[in-house]
């Protein structure tokens, strides 16, 4: 039922759009009809162009996200586990956090050219903060009362961190990764629109030069659909991973829980 409800708004938009196109309410050059979009999408898929551009963009996101994660995650853990370390990093990180990645694209192009490196750098800048800050907040805002349990049980600092603090941070880390993934997509599109020779952003920019609004709209829809699918698989994967480790993805939340009353 939830999924059906979710389809209602897109359906209304498509109906209004179709009716408008049929009644010639919109200029076909500005808003092409849904059937023009469908046939363009079909052609782009058939020729393999859409899949090729999507694959290029997807690979960039995947590599960029992976590189960012292996840098941001351990750094957040390191800073989070050393209470005083944050004082050294805070001003710099706060400064960097306010700079939108799109604003540094020109300098990145000057440094790295329009090749892959500048795109990965943009993804890195966009993805770093959600992963880093959420992991950091997860490992620093833990329940101190639970830590006291480890203290009484004579746990070493390492055990306290890995057995009590880190498991509490997992939901926050997952949220950071999910946000980071979304930011990767958005920033990459920005980078590809400005300077690229392949990728879905490039396809959109190229279509603008050729005055093909239908291709632009197919490109926009592709970004939305791929983003949605990637997010869906990410959540599913996390859920599977969590249960395979005997953990519940919903811990800490109160909804959807069954209460077993005392016998």
């Amino acid at each position, binding site marked *: 039922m939830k999924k059906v409800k979710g389809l209602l708004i897109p359906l209304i938009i498509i109906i209004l759009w179709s009716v408008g196109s049929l009644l010639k309410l919109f200029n076909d050059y500005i808003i092409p009809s849904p059937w023009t979009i469908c046939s363009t999408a079909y052609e782009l898929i058939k020729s393999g162009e859409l899949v090729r551009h999507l694959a290029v963009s997807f690979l960039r996101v995947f590599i960029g996200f992976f590189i960012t994660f292996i840098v941001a995650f351990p750094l957040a853990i390191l800073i989070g586990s050393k209470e005083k370390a944050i004082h050294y990093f805070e001003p710099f990180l706060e400064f960097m956090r306010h700079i939108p990645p799109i604003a540094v694209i020109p300098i990145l192009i000057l440094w790295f050219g329009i090749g892959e490196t500048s795109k990965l750098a943009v993804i890195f800048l966009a993805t770093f903060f959600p992963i880093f800050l959420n992991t950091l907040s997860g490992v620093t805002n833990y329940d101190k*009362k*639970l830590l*006291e*349990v480890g*203290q*009484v*049980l*004579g*746990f070493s600092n390492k*055990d306290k961190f890995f*057995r*009590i603090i880190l*498991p*509490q941070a*997992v939901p926050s880390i997952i949220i950071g990764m999910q946000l980071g993934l979304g930011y990767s997509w958005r920033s990459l599109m920005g980078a590809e629109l400005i300077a690229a020779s392949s990728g879905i952003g490039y396809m959109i920019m190229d279509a603008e030069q050729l005055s093909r609004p239908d291709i632009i709209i197919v490109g926009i829809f592709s970004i939305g659909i791929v983003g949605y699918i990637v997010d869906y698989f990410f959540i599913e994967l996390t859920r599977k991973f969590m249960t395979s480790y*005997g*953990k*519940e993805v919903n*811990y*800490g939340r*109160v909804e959807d*829980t*069954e*209460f*077993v*009353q*005392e*016998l």
Partner: protein
Amino acid sequence: MAGLKIQNLCKSFDINDKKINVLNNLNMSIQDGSFVTIVGKSGCGKTTFLRILCGLEKQWSGSIEFTGSLQENNSKRKIGIVFQEPRLMPWLTVEQNMAFPLIKEKDKNLVYGKVHKHLKMLGLESFKDAYPHQISGGMAQRVALGRTLCYDSEIILMDEPLGALDAFNRRKLQKEFINIFLENKKTIIFVTHDVDEAVYLGEKVIVMDKGSIVKEVPVNLEYDRDFNSREFLKIREDILNIFFI
């Protein structure tokens, strides 16, 4: 097993540059294998006292000595505590929570044996795979007790563990505490603000007020005690009189 000898224990907190004494020259001796209850009003320092004993409070003065067997090995003494709230790890099941103190233990059969022995003892076998948010408050507190028992400490501290429970669960768990004590004969120091509970459980009731011990009252009554017996009511009244006279 171990007892305790506490001498001149003092503890103060600095709040807004003002020194507040929480414990003033506390002296007491707790016998090996005895059940001692400490009763007092809120803020009389009883929780702080337990926190010092289990190493959660630093910077205090005085001396705490273990008595009883194993005395030469003082630094290795194990003290377990059951807090007022269960403090279970929400990502672990009941069984995993009870095995939590044994994470360093290599012999998995030993861990399994210990955990299952206590699961059975506390009637938690059928809930071993449940998560803390799926069980009731009384059960969660029993899991916390099971975790402390699995830790196999020589002294068990209890900081108002029944404070948040309803009267029915309270009575049920009080009986379980007595059974555990009679079975294991471990030293138990139980803090409460409920005089009835203190007299019902303790072999000795220590009455605290404003950071000092006001009186030590021995309770020479057999377990299971009757709340309405004349002797019980007499002891209860004696203790209440300390606070209200």
